[in-house]
């Protein structure tokens, strides 16, 4: 055995290994230089992005107040049950326990968890009851991933009252996210989806605040870097009077239709009702799909705001337009008379009136008793061109510009319109129908209320509006527009309308001590009902109209009431108008009216 082995090869080869080790270490050093010094800035930004997170502090939406400062819409604190899956030790077991504690379906929770963003809590139950919160608190040790958040929730204390005017809120839709007016909002944001909530959405939303926080890898907050508190949405003071609104809703109980009352001097809307209605509170936490599909498929169309979206034949209320136009155009004078035998035979057609006939009629009496023959004759002399022009000057056939979304224009037919749409010429007989507000004429209750207001205020077309001031600032562009009517014309129309209530078809709207001016109307729906094969008697009854303003000599309120399938305006709509007016003037109990004329009016 050699004492010293020959280790020359070993030593030479160890030199190779040493070089290899130095080489590898140098390469590693270069990589660290590259990461830490050359690209250090990039990684510092990534690390910052990792650790800090911006949390939105939702600004409570501004409350809506009525003209007296009474609350119409507010926010109330509510509890959201949140689940942060990353915090769970055993997510499956925790979901099961949570489902049992809240008595909701496990599948529902799992579906929401599946759609979440990493490290963001999932809302498992919005607006949870106090009992739920207590149950979760008691079990918080076995539910480490569950938390409860207090969030402001939109609340409509009047429930369905003025629901269509106030509107509703809901999660922003995919389509809305694309629109410029919703710029800066992300998915899940709560925005107005109808009515004033939608119209004044930006103003009501205020400005969201945020917190920049340091979070650890499990998303748990460990410190706060910066805080910008939210700016509450400013309150919006409305023109609505919640007491009148309540009276209007009461007066409408059990009926379908709509009513709107405005101040004829300013255009301020005092109350508006559209029935059937819905409860906007059902939308605030995300409406249940079943309820939503029921609401949109309901033949009573509860989501539709009939005041601005219901386009009805104005019926005899249109006689106000014909009378005004004829007096202004000099087609008739206040003393012009026509004989009414109960019908008019013209253009090979028999146009009907009250069967017994009204006899000799001037414009005053024709309005009072709503004599069709007088207006057939007047309409024929005016011709359709001048009728259409005057209807437009009086605000029909175009949106009123009310501060609500999706207002419809109504329709004033003319030969040009007919040629454009149907490619057929205008027939003279159609003018006869239009003269009593039938045929193609369509008007919204708001347009008709404004028309009544224009007669009441001496010939000015107001711009109806619902907002008095936003955050104390009055809104611009509300000046009424002068139509240019002769005082004499207005005098004749007004006295006719006063007589309608005092001794004519609108007697049911009479008030003690206060002169009410009005006009009844019925929108014939028989033909339409037959077309739609609706056999029930209810559906065949006409829509009853009633326009009014009061006090007749210094009007403070103008009103349009439409009762769908309620029968004639005098029978169906005038009593509703009576109750609304009585409430407005503080007359608690409706006075029992005394019949002045028979009900056998021809409208």
């Amino acid at each position, binding site marked *: 055995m050699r004492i010293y082995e020959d280790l020359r*090869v070993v030593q030479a080869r160890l030199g190779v290994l040493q070089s290899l080790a130095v080489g590898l270490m140098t390469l590693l050093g270069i990589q660290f230089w590259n990461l830490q010094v050359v690209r*250090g800035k990039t990684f510092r930004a990534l690390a910052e992005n990792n650790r800090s997170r911006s949390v939105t502090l939702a600004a409570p939406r501004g409350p809506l107040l009525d003209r007296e400062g009474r609350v119409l819409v507010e926010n109330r604190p509510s509890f959201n049950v949140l689940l942060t899956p990353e915090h769970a030790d055993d997510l499956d077991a925790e979901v099961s326990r949570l489902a049992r504690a809240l008595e909701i379906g496990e599948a529902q929770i799992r579906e929401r968890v599946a759609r979440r963003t990493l490290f963001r809590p999932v809302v498992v139950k919005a607006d949870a009851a106090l009992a739920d919160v207590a149950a979760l608190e008691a079990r918080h040790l076995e539910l480490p991933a569950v938390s409860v958040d207090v969030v402001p929730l939109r609340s409509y204390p009047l429930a369905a009252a003025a629901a269509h005017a106030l509107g509703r809120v809901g999660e922003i839709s995919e389509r809305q996210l694309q629109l410029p007016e919703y710029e800066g909002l992300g998915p899940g944001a709560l925005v107005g989806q109808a009515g004033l909530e939608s119209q004044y959405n930006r103003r009501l939303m205020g400005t969201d605040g945020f917190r920049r926080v340091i979070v650890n890898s499990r998303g748990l907050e460990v410190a706060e870097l910066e805080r910008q508190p939210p700016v509450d949405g400013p309150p919006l003071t409305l023109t609505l009077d919640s007491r009148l609104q309540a009276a209007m809703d009461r007066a409408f109980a059990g009926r379908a239709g709509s009513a709107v009352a405005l101040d004829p001097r300013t255009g301020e809307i005092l109350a508006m009702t559209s029935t059937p209605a819905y409860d906007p509170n059902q939308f605030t936490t995300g409406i249940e799909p079943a309820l939503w599909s029921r609401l949109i498929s309901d033949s009573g169309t509860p989501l539709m705001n009939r005041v601005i979206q219901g386009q009805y034949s104005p019926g005899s209320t249109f006689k106000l337009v014909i009378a005004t136009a004829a007096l202004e155009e000099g087609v008739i004078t206040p003393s012009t008379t026509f004989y009414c035998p109960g019908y008019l035979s013209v253009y090979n057609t028999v146009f009907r009136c009250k069967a017994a006939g009204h006899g000799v009629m001037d414009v005053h009496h024709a309005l009072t008793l709503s004599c069709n023959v007088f207006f057939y004759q007047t309409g024929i002399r005016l011709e359709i061109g001048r009728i259409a022009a005057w209807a437009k000057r009086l605000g029909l056939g175009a949106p009123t510009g009310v501060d609500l979304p999706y207002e419809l224009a109504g329709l004033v037919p003319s030969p040009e319109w007919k040629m454009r749409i149907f490619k057929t010429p205008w027939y003279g007989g159609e003018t006869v129908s239009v003269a009593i507000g039938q045929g193609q004429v369509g008007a919204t209750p708001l347009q008709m209320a404004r028309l009544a207001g224009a007669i009441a205020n001496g010939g000015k077309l107001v711009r109806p509006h619902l907002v008095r001031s936003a955050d104390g600032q009055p809104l611009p562009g509300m000046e009424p527009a002068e139509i240019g009517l002769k005082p004499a014309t207005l005098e004749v129309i007004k006295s006719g309308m006063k007589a309608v209530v005092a001794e004519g078809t609108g007697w049911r709207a009479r008030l003690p001590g206060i002169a009410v001016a009005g006009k009844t109307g019925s929108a014939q729906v028989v033909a339409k009902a037959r077309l739609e094969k609706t056999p029930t008697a209810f559906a065949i009854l006409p829509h009853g109209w009633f326009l009014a303003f009061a006090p007749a000599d210094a009007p403070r309120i103008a009103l349009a009431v439409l009762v769908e399938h309620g029968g004639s305006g005098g029978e169906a709509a005038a009593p509703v108008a009576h109750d609304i007016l009585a409430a407005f003037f503080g007359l608690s109990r409706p006075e029992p009216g005394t019949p002045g004329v028979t009900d056998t009016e021809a409208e």
Partner: protein
Amino acid sequence: MIDRRLFFNIDWVLLGAVLLLSGLGVAMIASATPAGRFSGLYLKQIYAIGLGLLGLVIALAIDYRRLADRAIVLYAASVLVLLYVMRFAPVIKETRRWIQIGSFQLQPSEFVKIAAALFVAKVFAESRLESMGLRDVLIPGAAVGILAVLIARGPDLGTAACLVPLFCAAAFLAGLRMKAVLGLLLVMLLVAGLAWPYLKDYQRTRIYTFLDPSLDPQGAGYQKIQSQIAVGSGGLLGKGYKQGSQAQLGYLPARHTDFIFSVLAEEMGFLGVVSVLGLYLLVIWRMLETAQLARDRVGAFLVAGLAATFTFQVVYNVAMVAGLVPVKGLPLPLMSYGGSSIFSSLIAVGLILNVRMRRFAN
């Protein structure tokens, strides 16, 4: 038992550097586990270092030649223990790697590396061939291969892979012909290099998962990204001790074990990284120097095998932290938290000191 003369021949530089790295490891573990269920782990690491030093002294005391003479016995024991672990050890983190002794968890594979180094050194030292071809290393290679496969079944591919450099280094020094060495390397590189780009992602994932079923590509990807962010954001000077957001807020996975070097890089910066890499290079250099100074082949092979394993682990772990190689459960020797790792590392250092201090003795 230890001759006083031997005591003076201990490589104090190597021992000093090793203790410095261990101490740095404790400091980084303390930073990486400030609170929560892992706080206080640095104390356990200190105990482990204490125990490891005891093991180091024992490994130092017994003449390495007497240990090498019993290499066959140690090899057989290793196989038996690994078989036992495979069949009976509790499943921890979906793997069977540990055996429970009292309140301690021991990872036998860490100690198998040392047994393998002794075994390989002994086998090659006994072979008196002037030069060896591939055929001559087949039988010892197969013997080590059996150990590697048993460890890999754990599954613990990282530790199993450590046996490859161990064996290669010893075979290289034992006189494997340069042609054979080059041929071996060339073939391995060619196969890997040519095949890899043609594989689809899912095929690569399949290969990974075939080799290492515990591998979760998504999880591994997350770890890699977070580690790179930690390292890169450290910059030149670092964010300061206990000030690294990646480490302190928990974005770094396995930060006190496999990714302890990320914590160092984030908090101590490039200067800290270079200093520690320098210390590791010093340790490796002194180890290889010891192999050169060894008085006999068995000592040289033993040291070279242990040094190769050590170097492989350091380089792989640091390269993993830098995002250069796939994430594997391979600790950084001396610095990562873990009793078995620190214990076996210190025993290996003890054996290397053993060889160096007995270089003049008969």
